[in-house]
């Protein structure tokens, strides 16, 4: 009987017998006298930012107000729109007429009106605040004050970072967690926060696949000179009835911008990779247009392989905080995130910026990277090198959205870099473009009809939504989006 790269579970599936199984297998098999090449691969089926939840155990649901050692005041409350949109040039009447418009009976229109007013709260009326967050004063975002966080000591300095992790390691750097860890949709016990559940659900639906391949010459449980590869696969994860990915499926790994190959040391099933200046991996996300390369500076990975062959792990490094801001904001629109998930986007901008703790800009010295860690769970799989070149799959239906997302991100970066105010591009999702104004100045989100009847006072001019459709038609003839 040989030990295969992964121990097969006995048919009965009872956990208590797995250890017995392993022991039996090991004692019965002849100990390897010679090292031989080995490969062990995995497909990720859970992935999320590694936030530590400090509330009571057993009370671990997303968006809980529940105070804890991480956030003594509890999860950040829902946004008070009236407060958020108030500016020196905006009267209280204007605020009221937009946040709680009395005459508008259709709740969808009210929702869009709130989105619109949230979008414009800079020092000047015409600025889209999400693209130019530096034009809005910092509203402040309460950060995590606890001392415990998951992650790595990225700079090797126990005096920086300010966190201790569950293994007792000091100097853990996870400033992203500090900055955003009290936000409702991120807060919760592992794999329960709303954004995580959503992202995992999409991953298991087939939105993207992340695979890991370990190899070496000694043994998968102990090897000083192992290699770890991580990257994107175009092959879908197969979801089982118990919610996890099915084991032993084969996946092709694409060696593109989302791929990395690093050295690793394995001791008793714990894999620690080297720290590399750039670790490229697929990006955590919940919308197809967010997909791409998550570039970890000073990145490293830890993976723990259990006796049943399943893995859990941590991916960490410094990520460009501007990239993280864009991910959250421009995937749909800043106002969507604010009205649906109640992230104060402007507060997030400042929180990310001031907590940035790595990758200084050579010109200005400003820190462009923020320390971050993601946790993952993975099941055994086969990772195959494909024949011929393969690229990331972008479905035709997602191409326009992906182009738009990248465009918005580029504009945002440009604004920061040049310290100049950027305009809202044509076809942008910002500012509730479906709102249209009537001749009498009131607002509607219809195109001239309401409840199946002709709108008594229809909007004037072509709808911005119609404009958007036209933009999309024009974009459809543009070059296909290349994987980035």
């Amino acid at each position, binding site marked *: 009987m040989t030990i295969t790269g992964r121990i097969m579970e006995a048919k009965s599936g009872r956990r208590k017998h797995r250890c017995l199984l392993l022991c039996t297998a090991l004692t019965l098999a002849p100990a390897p006298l010679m090292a031989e090449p080995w490969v062990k691969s995995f497909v990720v089926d859970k992935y999320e930012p590694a936030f530590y939840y400090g509330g009571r155990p057993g*009370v671990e649901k997303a968006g809980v107000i529940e105070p804890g050692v991480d956030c003594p005041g509890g999860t950040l409350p829902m946004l008070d729109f009236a407060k958020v949109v108030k500016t020196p040039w905006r009267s209280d009447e204007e605020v009221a007429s937009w946040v709680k418009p009395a005459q508008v009976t259709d709740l969808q229109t*009210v*929702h869009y009106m709130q989105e619109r007013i949230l979008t414009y709260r800079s020092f000047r009326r015409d600025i889209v605040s999400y693209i130019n967050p530096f034009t809005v004063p910092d509203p402040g975002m309460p950060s995590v004050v606890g001392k415990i966080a998951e992650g790595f000591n990225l700079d090797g300095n126990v005096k920086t970072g300010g966190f201790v992790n569950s293994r007792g390691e000091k100097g853990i750097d996870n400033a992203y967690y500090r900055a955003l860890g009290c936000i409702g949709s991120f807060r919760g016990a592992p794999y329960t926060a709303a954004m995580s559940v959503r992202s995992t659900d999409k991953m298991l*639906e*087939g939105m993207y696949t992340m695979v890991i391949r370990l190899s070496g010459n000694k043994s998968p449980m102990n090897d000083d000179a192992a290699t770890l590869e991580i990257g994107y696969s175009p092959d879908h994860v197969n979801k089982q009835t118990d919610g996890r990915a099915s084991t032993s499926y084969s996946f092709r790994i694409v060696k593109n911008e989302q791929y990395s190959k690093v050295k690793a040391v394995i001791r008793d099933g714990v894999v620690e990779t080297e720290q590399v200046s750039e670790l490229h991996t697929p990006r955590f996300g919940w919308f197809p247009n967010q997909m791409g390369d998550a570039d970890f500076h000073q990145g490293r990975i830890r993976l723990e392989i259990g006796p049943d062959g399943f893995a859990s792990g941590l991916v960490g490094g410094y990520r460009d905080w501007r990239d993280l801001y864009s991910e959250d904001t421009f995937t749909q629109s800043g106002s969507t995130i604010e009205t649906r998930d109640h992230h104060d986007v402007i507060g997030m901008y400042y929180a990310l910026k001031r907590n940035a703790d790595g990758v200084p800009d050579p010109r200005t010295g400003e820190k462009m990277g923020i320390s971050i860690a993601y946790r993952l769970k993975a099941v055994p799989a086969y990772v195959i090198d494909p024949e011929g070149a393969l690229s990331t799959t972008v479905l035709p239906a*997602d191409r326009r959205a992906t182009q738009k997302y990248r465009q918005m991100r580029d504009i945002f970066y440009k604004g920061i870099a040049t310290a100049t105010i950027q305009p809202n591009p044509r076809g942008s999702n910002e500012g509730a473009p479906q709102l249209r104004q009537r001749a009498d100045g009131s607002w509607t989100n219809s195109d001239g009809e309401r409840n199946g009847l002709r709108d008594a006072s229809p909007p004037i001019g072509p709808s911005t939504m119609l404009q958007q459709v036209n933009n999309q038609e024009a974009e459809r003839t543009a070059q296909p989006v290349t994987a980035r």
Partner: protein
Amino acid sequence: MALDRRFLLRGAFQGSAVAMALPLLDCFLDGNGQALADNGKRIPTRFGTYFWGCGLTKELFVPKTIGANYETTQQLASLEPYKKKISVFSGLRAIVDDNPNFQHWTGLAAVTTGISPTRAGEFDSQTIDQTIADAIGHGTRFKSIEATCSGNKNESYSSLGGANTNPPEVSPLGLYTRLFGPGFQDPSKGDWKPDPQVLVHQSMLSVVADDRKRLMANLSASDKARMDQYFTSVRELEQSMEAALKRPDVVAQVTIPAAPGEMPVSKSVPELQKIVPMMSRLIALGLATNQTHVFNIALAEPGSTIFMPGDSKPFHQQTHEEPIDPVLGYQPVSANFSTHSMKFFAMLIKELEDIKEGDGTLLDHSLVLAYTDTSFAKLHALDGIPVLLAGSASGRVKTGYHIAGEGSPVSRVGLTVQQAMGLSIDGWGKGSMATKKAFSEILA
């Protein structure tokens, strides 16, 4: 069972309560005012769909018991009086394959076409109600009737494929006018005509029957018995065609009311509580008087914006914004909306059950598919889309079961439904939702 001789229309019009006692259009369908029951007349089987958006709450609706005699769960409490006639399906999946998951669209298209749609807002084939109407919709005035309770003419999910949907009636008055206004065919009066296709099929059968003598001539005894069976089947088919050539008797004893007044359409839950019963009753009357055999009714759109007066956030918004309660484990406000969605379904079922037909009710002679667009609206998840089936399709379906789908594709329900309605198909759906496995445990 006759309805009240005075059909009181109660409602709120522009804020004030109105009660109108309307004069009657008595419409007893035989001269003696007797129910035409138990005389073996053919009662047609009807099909309908009820659509509501944003799903249900898994923790509150999935019964723990699987199979018959499932326990009433909190979110299905309003359906308790009809529980024996309703089956619940949990754990069914819409599988997207290589298409995106179009929020608030892919799930509902998967239920009614068995296909993961390639474009948002479009169906990749005609919807199941139209396929069934193709088979059973002849011989009635309308192939199918569509209606929506929320006043928006875009809210129809019955389609011949692509982006177009069959336009719905958007108000009780509109529905009444369509069914009982000009063109109303009183089946007890003169202008009923048999389906000409039946005559054609009769002549076709007789040609086949003519071959019989020749065919029987050379057979061995046992083969003759088998050939006899074939021609017995031919004879039975001929007999059912003879029946189809006779005017069907509408056995339900119903009264057609006068037209309802104009009512404000609104998605507020209290207003819907008045509109839904009215639309449901009109549909039931339309079925009972043979105006149509197929109906589709939508509560509201998939990103359901039904709301409680005083609360600024409609249902859909709540599903995204409302946090999950740490003690309950679900979103209570969203759950409340889902519970209302089931109460509205119960109102429809009540109207069907209240009409006695033959030795059963209109519900017994119908099959109603209740479906939605997602299992967990917060995530737009497609795993565990709830589906309910009401009515026994004139005995072709066993009712009162909780079926656990265990991750199998939701297209299995559509296949089961079509087989129950007598369609001759062995498989349905495409891609990973292509299936040949109907739920045989509920097919009689």
